[in-house]
């Protein structure tokens, strides 16, 4: 008998609203500092222009920041006790969460001033028996486009509940 209930299966049919984030040089600098980047193209407009970008350019995996805002920029009463956005957490008896697999297909770079749109959908939900009990895998797919409609990235992220 699995742990994914009918209620959880109905939950999986939900649709997520589209989300837009206007990316600033501040957003880019924060993420760049947090990940130890030192290349001035992430901090200094002149350096970015000299390198052929339209403005300060984001580090490679910056779309992570956009998708986290798409999920977690909600009022605190819409968060689980562990801080996870409630809208992302299926109704399951297994609620301790960890990151599983991430897969990214990269398109155009993100620069300061871009407006990045995210479309989010639940791609799959399945369970496996782990060493310490059932594990439920919830895979979300995110598609990022910029204000010109160019693909910026597609990212599939699987969260594991145990």
């Amino acid at each position: 008998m699995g742990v994914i209930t009918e209620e959880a299966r109905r939950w999986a049919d939900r649709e997520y609203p589209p989300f837009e984030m206007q990316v600033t040089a501040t957003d880019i600098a924060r993420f760049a500092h947090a990940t130890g980047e030192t290349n001035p193209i992430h901090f200094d407009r002149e350096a970015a222009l000299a390198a052929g970008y339209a403005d300060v350019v984001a580090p490679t995996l910056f779309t992570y920041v956009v998708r986290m805002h798409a999920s977690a920029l909600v009022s605190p009463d819409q968060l689980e006790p562990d801080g996870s956005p409630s809208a992302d957490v299926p109704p399951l008896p297994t609620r301790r969460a960890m990151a599983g697999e991430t897969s990214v297909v990269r398109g155009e770079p993100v620069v300061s001033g871009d407006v990045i749109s995210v479309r989010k959908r639940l791609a799959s939900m399945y369970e496996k028996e782990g060493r310490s009990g059932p594990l439920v895998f919830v895979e979300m797919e995110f598609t990022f486009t910029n204000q010109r409609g160019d693909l910026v990235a597609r990212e599939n992220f699987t969260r594991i509940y145990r």
Partner: protein
Amino acid sequence: MSALPAVGAESPIQVRNPSALDLFMFSASSWLLHRIHYDTPFTTEHDGHPGLLIHGPLQGVYLVQTAESWLGDQARLATITYRHLAPAYLGDSLECGGTVTVADDEGVDLELWARKPDGTVTTSGTARFTRR
């Protein structure tokens, strides 16, 4: 055509030792609110971990940075897939490296990993870098 590394070539190892400040900055910069990266009592008492976890996505960034600093401006990340095989905790030292598995006219495929000094791989992945 610039020279990308050949099949079997190994990247220099990058050692990453994220501090509590680094973990906080990563959570704050991405608005990642999950308590297991900053709330020690919750992490140990509720989730049963020995300490704060180093974010999986931060380890993904480490893999990309390891490859980017090796390949330089010659190539650009096209795709990457990585998965977390064992938890990494605050205080762990992560040795990050990679090796070339495919080299062709368009670019290279890499295997990338982050491991603890005892050899435990915490994150492993594959990536495609294409020539600029």
